[in-house]
């Protein structure tokens, strides 16, 4: 018999951790629209570029989406800030889940969280060959597609 914490309470825990400032500040996240997203689907995150890389001192904005089948299905991740992370981030800013270990080996029973997704991306930035990749002009963003806000039934 299943006794695992259900999706909503997992995400509430995630939210609480971010509200209490669980991370070291290099990655932060929160609900995109806390006023009106009772199912906690749309999240925003930010990653501070790691030191000694071309990402250094830049802040990368990311959108994460946790569908109703989270955590069975990992979140989708899209960069808002333009970034050059070859093979990982596609031309429209979406992260290829196959190229990010956290997402590729996503296991709903393990302790994978939104924070670990952001940290995973940050770790990639710090590694070769990405470390020294020339980055787009600071502050440029991908063309924003209108977020189709998921309206789950009340």
């Amino acid at each position, binding site marked *: *018999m*299943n*006794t*695992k*914490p*259900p999706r*909503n*309470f997992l995400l*509430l825990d995630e*939210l609480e951790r971010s509200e209490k400032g669980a991370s070291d500040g290099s990655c932060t996240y929160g609900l995109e629209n*806390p*006023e*009106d997203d*009772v199912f*906690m689907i749309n999240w925003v995150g930010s990653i501070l570029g790691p030191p000694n890389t071309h990402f250094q001192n830049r802040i990368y904005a990311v959108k994460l989406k946790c569908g109703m089948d989270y955590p069975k299905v990992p979140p989708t991740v899209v960069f808002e800030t333009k970034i050059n992370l070859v093979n990982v981030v596609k031309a429209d800013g979406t992260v290829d889940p196959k190229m990010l270990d956290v997402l590729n080996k996503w296991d709903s029973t393990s302790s994978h969280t939104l924070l670990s997704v952001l940290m995973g991306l940050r770790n990639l930035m710090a590694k070769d060959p990405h470390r020294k990749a020339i980055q787009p002009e600071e502050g440029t963003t991908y063309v924003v597609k209108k977020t189709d806000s998921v309206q789950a039934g*009340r």
Partner: protein
Amino acid sequence: MSMVSKRILKEVDRLRQDPVPGIVAEPIEDNIRYFSVRMNGPNDSPYADGCFTLELYLPDEYPMLPPKVRFLTKMYHPNIDKLGRICLDILKDKWSPALQIRTVLLSIQALLSAPNPDDPLANDVAEQWKTDERKAIETAVKWTALYAERVVRNDVAKRE
């Protein structure tokens, strides 16, 4: 584990055999620790005409730790925030392992009748409640009509 499961099974059993008036709690899908709750607003409150949905989860350490509960219906209440999280002492430091799902739900229902704007979770709502209670209650009634399911009561006629 077996001890706790036994308690949960008993609680579920009792809830079924002897339901609390105006409250229905049922396990969701196959998860014995996860409940869907429907709660009628208390009679003498701005929430009287609504039936509200909540979800409740019993963590592994239950009953040594309290259940996790939140409203899924949007609520206008100083102690309930935009995500439905509830500020209630027995869900936090005043939890007692001798409390049950039943008592927790009754306490939440009581909180609807007796909002406590001095210990707010939703600051803007609490502020409104303190400065203009009449208007706050009006808004609560409006939200109830807008977001909650309508309750058909036997005593509606009597009240009117």
